């Protein structure tokens, strides 16, 4: 029982982080129709930025978080400018190939700046590592903080999306880019912000995750593929779906790790993606697809 509750608590915490990564993927996909394959590397850069600011420059945690999010936002906008805007008309393959190019470029830069393969940087914990007991459930206070912060990020994102002008522009563009242009929305600018917001959410999740795990240049792909699994499970176009998908991937992964073996964690994303594509091609909360010619 104790083990199960521990696994569930860990699963929910990591799942919430996957949900944030998935959220960024879904927002960009909904608006632009492409998946930014450098999303994981934007996540990784956010984490390293926070590390530099918090551990090396010794800025307070909250300030480093905000600056890292701002940095990720800027990188996201750069991705749009470099890889999406000029290639939008060329089609999906060009955009995917260009974002892969960016992902390796960023990974290489991170390796040069923050150490080579096998260098894992530890991020100091936010609170004391003492576990808290809630009834029968043991939970690390660290996880609780991360979970609450994740919820806060999701809430902030929801408020931004529903209430602000920029958020409404994004919704309009996602639902019909041509009509959005007709009512005077500068669609390509919205695409730019969308890439920025997606990257900012990724950056925030990286900063939240850093104290729980370690930072290393190859972390981006691992998180990206799990975030994508979560997004596909949720239907790839649904924001609530991404959150549910993320939690399911996190819990599934922890249960599999606890009862089968820890190495299974590395392939949980593959298993989920294949399962989702074969049995739930439109996801849990996705809309039924209509294939356009």
């Amino acid at each position, binding site marked *: 029982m104790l083990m199960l509750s521990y696994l569930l608590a860990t699963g929910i915490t990591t799942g919430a982080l996957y949900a944030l990564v998935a959220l960024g993927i879904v927002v960009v996909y909904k608006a632009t129709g492409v998946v930014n394959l450098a999303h994981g590397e934007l996540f990784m850069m956010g984490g390293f930025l926070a590390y530099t600011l918090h551990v090396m420059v010794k800025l307070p945690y909250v300030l480093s978080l905000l600056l890292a999010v701002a940095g990720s936002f800027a990188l996201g906008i750069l991705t749009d400018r*470099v890889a999406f805007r000029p290639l939008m*008309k060329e089609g999906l*393959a060009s955009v995917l190939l260009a974002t892969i190019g960016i992902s*390796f470029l960023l990974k290489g830069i991170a*390796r040069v700046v923050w150490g080579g393969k096998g260098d894992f940087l530890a991020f100091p914990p936010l609170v004391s590592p003492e576990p808290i007991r809630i009834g029968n459930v043991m939970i690390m206070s660290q996880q609780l903080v991360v979970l609450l912060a994740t919820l806060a990020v999701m809430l902030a994102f929801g408020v931004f999306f529903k209430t602000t002008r920029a958020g409404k522009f994004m919704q309009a563009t996602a639902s019909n880019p041509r009509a959005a242009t007709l009512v005077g929305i500068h669609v390509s600018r919205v695409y730019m912000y969308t890439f920025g917001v997606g990257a900012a959410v990724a950056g925030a999740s990286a900063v939240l995750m850093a104290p729980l795990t370690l930072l290393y240049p190859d972390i981006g792909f691992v998180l990206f593929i799990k975030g994508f699994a979560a997004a*596909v499970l949720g239907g790839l176009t649904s924001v609530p779906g991404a959150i549910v998908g993320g939690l399911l991937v996190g819990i599934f992964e922890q249960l599999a790790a606890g009862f089968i073996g820890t190495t299974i964690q590395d392939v949980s994303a593959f298993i989920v993606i*294949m399962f989702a594509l074969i049995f739930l*091609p439109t996801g849990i909360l996705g809309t039924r697809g*209509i294939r356009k010619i």
Partner: protein
Amino acid sequence: MRVVVSHRAFLVVLFAALALLPVVANQYTLFVGNLMMLYIILALGLNLLVGFAGQLAFANAAMYGIGAYGAALLQVRLGFSYWIAAPCGALLAMAVGTLLAFPALRLSGIYLALATLAFAQFTQWVLLHWNTVTFGAGGFPVPQPDFSALGMSPDRGIYYVSWVVTVVLLAFAWRVVRSRVGRAFVAMRDREMAAQALGVDLLRYKAVAFALSGFYAGTAGALYPAVLAYVSPEGFDLFQMILHKAMIVVGGMGSIVGSVIGASLLVYLLEVLRQFKATQEIVFGALLLAFVLFQPRGLVDFAKRCLPGWAEPLHYASDSESPADVTVADELVPGSGGGAPR
């Protein structure tokens, strides 16, 4: 006098030079030449699948690994001779490649790309963790085939084997793209629906494209243990994926000669940057990005414009083919569940 460099002459000169290389080269140059031929095979296979058939799949490195591990493990675990193990490894990769075609029929665009990427990661995981069969992360040494009957060292012997295999596969790819199959690939890539309406059996031709590409990657993989005398999971990781992609993009998507050019140049670059993994990532990432942005048809397009006599028919979609006002976002309206790659 105008210098006439035809694409055929280029290939003949390149392969003649590769054939003569063992006469003058030291062991290291011979190794690089051999590696170049492996990557030419890989790039040819990937270009058939991505450049001609338009299936944006990312599992090439996995097929390469399956071919290499298949050939190496059959020798080490079951005591097969290399000459039996190698074709088995190539055929195994071809079989797995064909199986991948089945999800590919239902998936397109992003879903196909990410599903195959996840498959590549899964293969890497199996190579790393199925210790009882694959020897795990450290890899294992493989005996090189014996060429003493011909009075040659193993390195030299396998070099000539690679040369013959590369020339045969190059000629075969050359024929394939000019056949009914090649035309079906191009039709399928440019407009899947239109191709289907014209009688192109999508299931069949996607399966053929994946099988061919799996066979090419598997063959390169089967040569790998004989060339390096060692196999480890690291040789088939994500970096290989971007390397193969960069080769066909730099050389020219939808071009046979382009695959050869891209593979040759990038292997050379890879060797120059051998010491620094980070530099390799930066350079190859930047190359891929720069070519997609500024020279999307690769070096072969450049050659075609600048060299009279360079007349390889290039099978890329013409400019007028994609209406300028249709953007990715227009095509992929939310809820449409992915779109056809163009």
